[in-house]
Every structure is written in C-alpha cells, then in structure tokens.
C-alpha cells in the first residue's frame, strides 16, 4: 500500500474508508492490529512493538440499540455507538484493544467490551487525574507495564532504540501537521477545517511512514492553492469527540472558516513534539500526560485549565468558538460555563451545539450557526 493511493483532494478518511484501509494493511503486512481509544497510551509503543495502531472511531448517527443489552441508555452517545459496533462485530479486524482511563465512560467501555467480547489482547491504561510528581511516576510505571504486556503479545522487544526511532518518525509527522496549522494562521487559510479533520483521521489509521508521505503530498497540494480573498469569521472548534466532518462543513456553509480546534482528534495530539530525553519513557510521560490537554485531567481551578484554549484563540486570531458537546459528555459539559466566561473576558464569543453524536445537519443548528457568523460581519 502506498500513499499515492490516497490523493488528498479525493479520498475522505471517513470511518468506512479507514476500515477498508486497515483491513488491507493487515493483509499486506500480516501484523496484528491494535485498536486504541484516547491517546494516553502512546501509539508509538504499539508501533514499536511491531503492531499497527488503529484509532477506533464511531459511526455517527448509527444504530446504538445493540448497546442496550449491556449498558444503560444514559451514557455518552459516542461510547454507546462504539459499543454497539463492537456488539455487531464491526471491529472483527482488531487483534487487540487498548483503552485509556480517560473519562468515566471510556474507562467503563473497556470493562464491558472485554467482558462481553473478549479479545486475545486487551489492556486498560490507567491514568491519574492530576499532574503531581507522584502521578507522573505512576504514569511512567504504567507505560512500563503497558510495554511489557504488548511485548508479550507481539513477541517483539521494544528496545529504547526502537522506541526512540519510532518516536522520531511520529515527530516528523508532527512537524508537518504544525506546518499545516501554520497556514491556518494566515488571513485566508488555504485549507478548510473539514479537510484538516480528514488529514488527522488518516493519522489514526496510516502507519507513520505512509502518513508522512500523505501529509507531504497534502501540504504540497495546499500550498499550491490560490488563497481566497473574502474575509470570513475565524472559528475554533471545541468539545467532544468529532470524527465526522459534518459540523465543520456546516460552519463552512454558514460562512465561517475553522482555523483551529480543541477536540480529541485534533491538534492537541500532534502540536508538540515528544520531547527528547535520555529515557524515552520520560519523554512519553511529558508528552502524553503532562502536556496532553484533555479536560479529564485536573489542572486546578482558575485560568490554568483553559490556558491551552485561550492561547490558541490568540495565536490563530479566533473570532468565535463553536462548542460541540454530545449527550452525557461530563468532561465538556462541566467545563462549558467556565470556558464560556473565560472566553468572554478575552472578547471571544461562544456558541454551544448540543448533539447526540448524530451530526445531523438540522435546520435549528444551521440557523444558530448562521446567526453566530453574522455577529462577526
């Protein structure tokens, strides 16, 4: 499989597309595929152990009723969606599963999934909730346990050299993604938010080298584009998991341009390099625990917890933030009132879209988005 099979302007890295790709890759390489959800457990370790990391996605709007036989109706609609897919056997290409203890729902998804549909390899990566020196030590030890487990499964040793080398390959991709985001700081970004999501979705399925080629060709394509000339409201997207471009498209249709994001499959995983250190596990702890900006980690009260968002809003000269929260998503629903107020102090308005992970482009949402964009004209 080569990256030229995925021309940037044509192929959408949708859920369905990603699954086709992973099945092909698995057949071609004969490597086990390890599904992961939330990236506290570094995909670098999975790759270094000779497996293919695959970021699990849901199927927005899909039928979640199969989940009813194991979980309550009141639960994050994305997690229910994933569970329903597991129940239907849609993840039959996975050889293993790694889930991080990020939010409550994801942590419990692990227990229920592995209880009812055991896989030959599974691991819950436990993550402390606040950044203290002892929590950091716990995280680092957890990385060690995780490495041991995956080594046992694949039979390959993850030496510090292999790990460093794998981190290096991922960092090269981070550099390219940063370059793409730099272009979004321009007055007239040559790339759309929906396209960037597509690029990042590809990072959840393509092995690092292939992804590198793909990013390079995407970057070349984007750089050749003639920039638009109309000024559009510059929008940041914040909120729950978004693995469908639908909302980005709705914003674009309402006249806005999405210039940055703070969501699960967004800039936050790629924006900084995994820092160099003598011990690669220190590097990974720094990157995936200390620096990784997920609202499930408690960074104390006050502004500190929103610093990441406020800084991005300034850097990308954001006019407004579109918040997107799906039903029963506690980490985001709790943060919303404080975030809204902090943004307001900075002169940035916010609109909140509630959804049940259907991404239905409803009239009501469109009207709200249009009204929001008009505020900036």
């Amino acid at each position: 499989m080569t990256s030229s099979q995925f021309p940037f302007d044509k192929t959408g890295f949708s859920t369905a597309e990603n699954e086709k790709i992973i099945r092909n890759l698995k057949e071609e390489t004969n490597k086990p595929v390890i599904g992961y959800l939330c990236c506290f457990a570094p995909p670098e370790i999975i790759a270094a152990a000779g497996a293919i990391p695959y970021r699990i996605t849901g199927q927005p709007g899909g039928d979640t009723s199969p989940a009813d036989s194991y979980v309550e109706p009141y639960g994050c609609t994305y997690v229910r969606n994933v569970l329903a897919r597991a129940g239907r056997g849609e993840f039959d290409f996975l050889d293993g599963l790694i889930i991080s203890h990020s939010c409550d729902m994801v942590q419990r998804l692990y227990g229920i999934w592995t209880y009812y549909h055991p896989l030959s390899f599974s691991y819950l990566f436990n993550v402390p909730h606040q950044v203290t020196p002892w929590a950091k030590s716990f995280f680092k030890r957890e990385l060690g346990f995780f490495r041991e487990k995956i080594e046992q499964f694949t039979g390959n040793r993850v030496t510090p050299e292999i790990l460093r080398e794998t981190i290096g390959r991922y960092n090269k991709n981070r550099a390219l993604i940063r370059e793409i985001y730099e272009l979004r700081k321009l007055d007239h970004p040559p790339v759309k938010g929906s396209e960037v999501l597509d690029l990042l979705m590809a990072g959840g399925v393509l092995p690092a080298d292939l992804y590198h080629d793909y990013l390079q060709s995407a970057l070349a394509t984007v750089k050749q584009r003639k920039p638009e000339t109309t000024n559009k409201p510059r929008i940041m997207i914040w909120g729950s998991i978004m693995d469908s471009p639908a909302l980005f498209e709705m914003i674009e249709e309402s006249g806005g341009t999405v210039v940055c994001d703070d969501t699960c499959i967004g800039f936050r995983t790629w924006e900084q390099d995994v820092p160099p250190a003598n011990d690669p596990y220190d590097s990974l702890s720094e990157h995936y625990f200390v620096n990784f900006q997920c609202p499930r980690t408690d960074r104390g009260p006050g502004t500190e917890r929103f610093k990441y968002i406020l800084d991005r809003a300034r850097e990308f000269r954001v006019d407004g933030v579109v918040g997107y929260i799906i039903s029963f998503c506690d980490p985001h629903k709790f943060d919303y009132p404080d975030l809204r107020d902090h943004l307001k102090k900075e002169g940035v308005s916010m609109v909140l879209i509630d959804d049940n992970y259907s991404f239905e482009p409803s009239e009501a949402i469109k009207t709200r988005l249009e009204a929001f964009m008009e505020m900036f004209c």
Partner: protein
Amino acid sequence: MSQSEMSRAKRHLETTAKMKEMLPRFFMRMMERKFSNEPVAWCMVGVPPELLKAFDLLFEWPENFGTMCASRQVAPMFIQEAENDGYSPELCSYVTNTMGYCKLFQEKGEAPEESPLPGGMGTPAMLLGSGFVCEPRWKWFQSVATRFFDVPVYSTDPLAPPWDIDAKDPRIEEHYLALLREDLAGQIEFMEKHTGKKLDLDNLREIMKRSHKALSYWRDTLALRKAVPSPMGSTDYFHAIIPQMYLVGDEDAVIFYREMYEEVKDRVERGVGVTEEEKYRLIWFGLPPWFNMGVFNYLESLGAVVVYESTYNVGDHFEVDLSDPLEAIVRRTWQRALKMHEYGSETMPELCNPAVFGGFSGSNLLEELVEQYRLNGALMHLTRSCRAVSFGEVHTRNRLAKTNVPSLIFESDMADPRFWSDAQIKTRLHAFLETMDKAKQGGSIDDL
C-alpha cells in the same frame, strides 16, 4: 411542582429516630464555631473523615447537603439556578445543587434562606476533593474554586486496578500503593499548610479506633438483615449513614451504631420485621431518590422489603493494623480495592473509601448475596444525572438473571425530582412484584 405522596419517609428503628436530637446538637456546635470565623473545609465523600477530625477542622459535605436539599424539596430551585448559568440538566444534580447554592450565596452575601442547614454550608476556606467513583468530582471543586470561592483545592486520586489485571501481583500492588501513599502525604501537607496545625498521629490513631469501632457495629448490623423477616429497611439504612459522616471518630457515633446494632439484634431475636408479612426481599442498587424516600415505605406496604443496598455499604476492609494510622488509611483503601477486584470490577473505575461507605456494582458478589440474604428481586435506580453509580446496572441485571432473580431498572434521579411520577412508578412496581411472583413459582424471567 406538586409534592409527591412519597416525599415523607417513615423510619422503623428507635435509634435512627434519636438522630433528630443528636444531629441538631452537632450542627448547632458547628454553627457557633462558624460564626466565630473558624475556617470551614468543604469535603467530598472519599476524604478520610478521620483526618478532618484529627485536624479539628470544621467541614461540610456538599454531597450530603445535596441529599438534604433534595429531601427538603429545595434542590430543584438550586438546580434551576445552575441551569440558568449554563450547566446542563444532565449533570450530577449534587453538583448543580452546589453550583446554584454558591451562586445565590454570592448574590445575597449569605446562605440562601432555603438552605436546610443553619447558615447553609457557609463559606469554604478550602476544598478537599476526592476523585473516587466519578469524573464530576474532578470538575466540581475545580469549578467552585473558579467561579465562586477562590480558595485552595486538594483532591485525592484513588485509582484502582482494572478488572482483568492481577491485583495481587506484588508489583501491581506496589504500583497502586505508591500512588495512594504519596497522595495521602500530599493531602496532609496541604491540610497542615492551610490549617496551620501539625497532624498529631496519636490523636489520629485514637480517632480511627473509634471510627472503626463504629464501622464494625454498622457492618454487623447490616449482616443482621439476613434474618427473615428482615429487621431493618432502607429508610433507616439510608439515614443511618449520616452520623458516620459528621460524627466520625466521636464516642457519640460509636454509641449510636452500638445501640442500633443492639436494637436490630433484639428485633431479630423477637422476630420483628419491617412489614407484617414479608413477601419479597429486595436488593437496591444505586442512590436513593432523596426527595421521595417514602417509596421504600410504599414497597413495604406491599410486603416488599429492601434488605441490602449496593451503596454506602461496608465490608471488612477497615480491619487493618492501626499502629501506623497513615498506612492504615492507605491499606484499608487498598483492601477495599482488592475486594472489589475479587468480586469483579468491570464497571468500577476507582476505589471507594470504606470509611465513608463505598459501593459496588455488577460482580460475583451477587450470587453470595442472593443466597445469604434470600433475595427475590433487584430494584435498580437508574439515576439520570449520576451515571457513575448507576452505570453497570444493565450488566448486573444480566448477571442476576443467571440466578433467576428478576431486576427492575427504573429511571429517576437522586436529587432532581423532575423525572419522577408517582403513577408511573407505582405501575412499574406492581408489575415487577407480579414478575417476582412468577419467578418464585419457578417461571422464567426472560419474558420480563
């Protein structure tokens, strides 16, 4: 909103009735100290209450405040305030109750008059959180300190091993114990700094001795409920947790739980049950509807008695060596984790601290309970705004079905009465009792 006919609950024990004199005395003492400007810590269940006592710190439990607001029917007003501020109705109603309270407190400069406690929860000087059980707990105090009271916060993070890890592997044990120990050390350092007092370990040990004594009476009382007819129901159970929250480590609490044990034992010996004719013995899962505790009396009027509750339950986890009281706090937390793990922790994220009554859900413990407590059915309260405690009920129902014990999952909330309808709940309870009849006669529960 018209008041439900189930809003008032009748208790059966004389001991729990005594709380009516005991607690106001305690609250008055607290109030006097508050008025002399002693600092108050707001605490989350999960903070070892013995520590609070050892620091002689004034404290409030916003969770418990939530239950009180619910039973006094004022929670909806506070919750509405929080919703006006942008908090979603889906969020934990204890949290939104707190947020609404804080908002009104700030607007008025004093406790809103609707507060069930004299002087409300006062103004916190510090927030002591605990992330056990759920995510909202991480957000709760973070937000209180961001929006309302700019005071220092310390939260503990009692992580537990996932269900499929060998928790008895010494390396795993050390992995978790190290976190628990350091976390506790951090908490003590924080408390010393913000109270200006040094922790006296001898004092802490004595407090823990009394607290564990009280807990052991409580545990033994719960075991007495295996008797047929059951001597004690849920209205007494859910109220009797309060002394351990407020009077922990006091001789008063030891006396309270001892007297309760003796009273319940006496009832067993005399064959006195909660109802005249005990037709059904139930296990209750989840938090109770604090605004309608009379639902338990309603069930009793139909001959159905709840004899075991999944929340606030204690086992033997506090039987630890107290010579080093700090290590004892760590060990009892860990012992509980091991127990939960042994029983199956597939739906549990973190440990619960046994000193403040943990809970369990979906586990191998079920078979034991069904047999020992002679259970005929399970009532599962699916609390819409607390997914943390109700999560796992469907899984538990699946496991109970294997023992031919039917379950009823019904939806409502612990503090927010908006999802409750007397008529609907009655219909469902009646239908469920019929199902239990069928199951008792050997019928299959599959057609539930």
